């Protein structure tokens, strides 16, 4: 039975593409295209100016090259920066008007957009290439004053909030990919939780790249006002294509006094085929700002897809007593490469951070944990604990750990530990002796290895992620 399941899962099951007519901006990166995007989204002038400012800055910025996974040069003029299903030129008012092909696509991905069909209380914002297709459970949320919509909609309906917070965590001038995103971002989610509200359901965005030759540049902005709580989850897939596609998103989180944001990612972009051909370049900038006192931001990520993953979800702990957490599982197989980790920047007093990172590399893949813990002179009584473990399967892959640890405050403590090893023969033998086949044994051990992180995921996704962990490693044993 299980063998059959594996057989089904071995191939990337989200690899289909939807044959839908799309409407694209002209190829290339220039002022015209930026104006085109801004125009089609009917954006106010300040936002267009903001985009153009980013574009000016982009001209002088250089692409960074210090990362471990190297990739062939990307021709930024050979990409479409905007792609939307044609039926979207006039935005459909409700699901009934939505192209049935799109509904079908999401059905196939296991994300029904029809509210009645959903079993569990999760509100979804579905992003297809450059536009948000549908956002579910809007009404339920609105009753509590929660704003959950696409960022284009937020620009129209809540410009004051967007203007106030956009670019405050990831400034325009940050680095190449962040600036590129600021100039050409198309869509993404916007969440605002009013003071004292505990968001009653999981909010989630589902990203799908469909059109070829496109880059996806979404922008997510989450604001948790005083004393509020929100848990947010993102998932991503893309069709199987031979070419590499660029995904450069920006995610900004802002937690005010006593607020808490929990951000989970299950990233399953198309990783390329067995020989490393094709796949998504996942170069994402994610940063959270604990702006207020006693605020908390927690990142959880399960990274199994993408040809190259290059991201460091970070926390800036500015408010006193704020807490930052980072839990990560990164799995690379075949020719995948990952350079991921986190940055914890302690600025406020009594701030705490915790980093748990588990890396598993198999096949010909290469995995790097790169992290920064920086305790500034004013961050008295701060604490950090970091643990990063790597598991290697075979001697064709690599696992690297590059932590940067800076302590400038004598009343603060930093502890860091890392180990690298393989699955021990004893463990395997023990499991096999009890009737598991080698693959099952490895799956069991790996799940145990990842448990600390999997536990942090919202319940509904933990199961899925656990399965994903197993699938990603198929074929790497024996």
């Amino acid at each position, binding site marked *: 039975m299980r063998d059959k399941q594996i057989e089904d899962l071995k191939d990337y099951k989200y690899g289909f593409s939807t044959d839908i007519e799309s409407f694209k901006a002209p190829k290339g990166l220039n002022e015209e295209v930026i104006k085109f995007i801004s125009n089609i989204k009917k954006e106010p002038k300040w936002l267009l100016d903001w985009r153009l400012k980013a574009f000016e800055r982009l001209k002088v910025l250089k692409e960074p090259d210090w990362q471990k996974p190297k990739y062939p040069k990307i021709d930024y003029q050979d990409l479409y920066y905007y792609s939307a299903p044609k039926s979207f030129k006039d935005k459909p008012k409700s699901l009934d008007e939505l192209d049935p092909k799109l509904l079908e696509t999401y059905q196939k991905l296991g994300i029904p957009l029809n509210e009645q069909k959903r079993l569990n209380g999760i509100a979804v914002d579905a992003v297809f290439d450059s536009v948000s297709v549908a956002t579910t459970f809007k009404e339920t949320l609105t009753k509590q004053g929660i704003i959950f919509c696409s960022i284009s909609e937020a620009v129209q309906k809540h410009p004051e909030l967007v203007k106030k917070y956009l670019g405050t965590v990831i400034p325009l001038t940050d680095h190449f990919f962040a600036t590129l995103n600021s100039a050409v971002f198309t869509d993404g989610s916007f969440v605002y939780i009013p003071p004292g509200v505990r968001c009653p359901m999981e909010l989630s965005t589902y990203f799908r790249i469909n059109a070829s030759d496109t880059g996806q540049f979404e922008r997510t902005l989450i604001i948790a006002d005083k004393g509020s709580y929100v848990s947010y989850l993102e998932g991503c897939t893309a069709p199987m294509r031979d070419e590499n596609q660029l995904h450069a998103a920006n995610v900004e989180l802002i937690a005010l006094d006593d607020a808490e944001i929990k951000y989970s990612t299950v990233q399953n972009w198309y990783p390329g085929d067995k020989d490393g051909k094709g796949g998504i370049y996942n170069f994402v900038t994610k940063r959270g700002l604990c702006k207020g006192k006693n605020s908390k931001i927690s990142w959880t990520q399960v990274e199994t897809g993408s040809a190259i993953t290059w991201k460091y979800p970070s926390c800036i702990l500015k408010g006193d007593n704020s807490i930052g957490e980072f839990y990560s599982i990164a799995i690379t197989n075949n020719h995948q490469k990952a350079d991921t980790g986190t940055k914890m920047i302690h600025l406020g007093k009594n701030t705490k951070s915790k980093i748990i990172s588990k890396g598993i590399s198999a096949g010909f893949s290469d995995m790097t944990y790169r992290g920064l813990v920086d305790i500034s002179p004013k961050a008295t009584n701060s604490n950090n604990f970091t643990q990063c473990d790597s598991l290697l399967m075979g001697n064709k892959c690599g696992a690297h750990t590059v932590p940067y640890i800076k302590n400038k405050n*004598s009343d603060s403590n930093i502890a860091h530990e890392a180990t690298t090893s393989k699955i021990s023969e004893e463990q395997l033998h023990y499991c096999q002796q009890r009737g598991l086949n080698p693959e099952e044994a490895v799956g069991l051990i790996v799940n145990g290895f990842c448990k600390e992180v999997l536990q942090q995921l919202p319940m509904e996704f933990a199961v899925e992620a656990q399965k994903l962990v197993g699938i990603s490693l198929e074929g790497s044993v024996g």
Partner: protein
Amino acid sequence: MEEQLKIDFEKNLKDFSYSDQEKKFKETNFKEFLKQGFPNRKLENWKFSDLNQIIQSNIGELTFYNDYKKENQIDKIELISELEHNKIIIVDGKIEKIDFKFEDQDKIEVLVEQGEENIRENINSLINLNNAFSNKFCKIIIKKNYSLKKPLVIYHSTNKNTQFKNTNLRIDFKLNENACLRLIDIFKDNSEKNFLNIYYNFEIDKSSILKNYKIDKSINNNVKYSYNNVKQQVNSISETFILSSGSKFFKNEINCDLLGQHSSAFVNGIFDLDDENHHEIKSNINHLVENTKSYQLVKSVLEKKSKAVYQGKIFVSSEAQKTDGYQLSNAILLSENSEFNAKPELEIYADDVKCSHGSSSGSLDENSIFYLMSRGLNYKEAKKLLINGFLLDVIEKITDEEIKNLIKNLLGVKE
């Protein structure tokens, strides 16, 4: 600075009789240095310090010419009295005296001429600078099956009048099969505001043992850089201990290639810093074959505005199965202005390995102080006792009893 460099380099070439081969070697290195300049923060190895800036603020303008014909006085240099030893005395990068009086003379060979092919690897710009300006290389060869009876102490000293000067020294060591050398580097600075650049090359043959102890204890205002390049063959052992304390700035780099099976490398260090001193250790342990082992332990005690940096790297190539690599760094920050930065790095391409690292930094444990004070010690005594114990961990790793006691006395650490 470039003008000065060029003038000094021409003078250096003119004044001393270098062979054509040597000249060519020096010229290539000089060009490379001109191209790269002093290392800055853009280089991963210098992420936490900018040497240009350090030289500017601590020294000012440097000159590079050293008169290797001049006789320097050496009788003023205070020697270690606690233990009998062979010695090499160096003043301003020039070897003034080599004395192996406790050894069989035919077992040790000292070549001063530049003999065989030099190692042409392009390591970093400071090594280029060293190669361009240092005197003729000295190569010390320990013959097969010979263990030195007494340790060899190298005294690094500067002349009273030397100031604003860059001095360069390069010594190559070769330990033939089954040889053993205990080497102590001691710094005796007689003048201030110089930049000392030291480059050692070690070739350690089968079953040989090298123990290198670097002691920088006396307080001085010099800027120092030292690079140890160690190549180890089958069954060999290298042990490096660094006591980093006295100088204004000191960076120790250890590059260790484990080329033979069952070879092992140990790097241990203590940062005991005060005032505005800034010290660094950068280690690079390359496990290149199966069954090799490395162990690193670095502890820091930081007072006032001092800053310590430890960048330790373990590299394991895909052939190097059964590698055992371990690395630990602990730091105690005693003042609110002190700073500790660490970058413990693992780069691993083989799966059957056991590699781990740990790093911690923080203040003295208040509970331990409370415990000691409740037993009648005052705060100062309690603090001293705790630091004592903290540092003793590293000192206990020294495998040579004689030298261990010497270092204990120097640090005032008691058991």
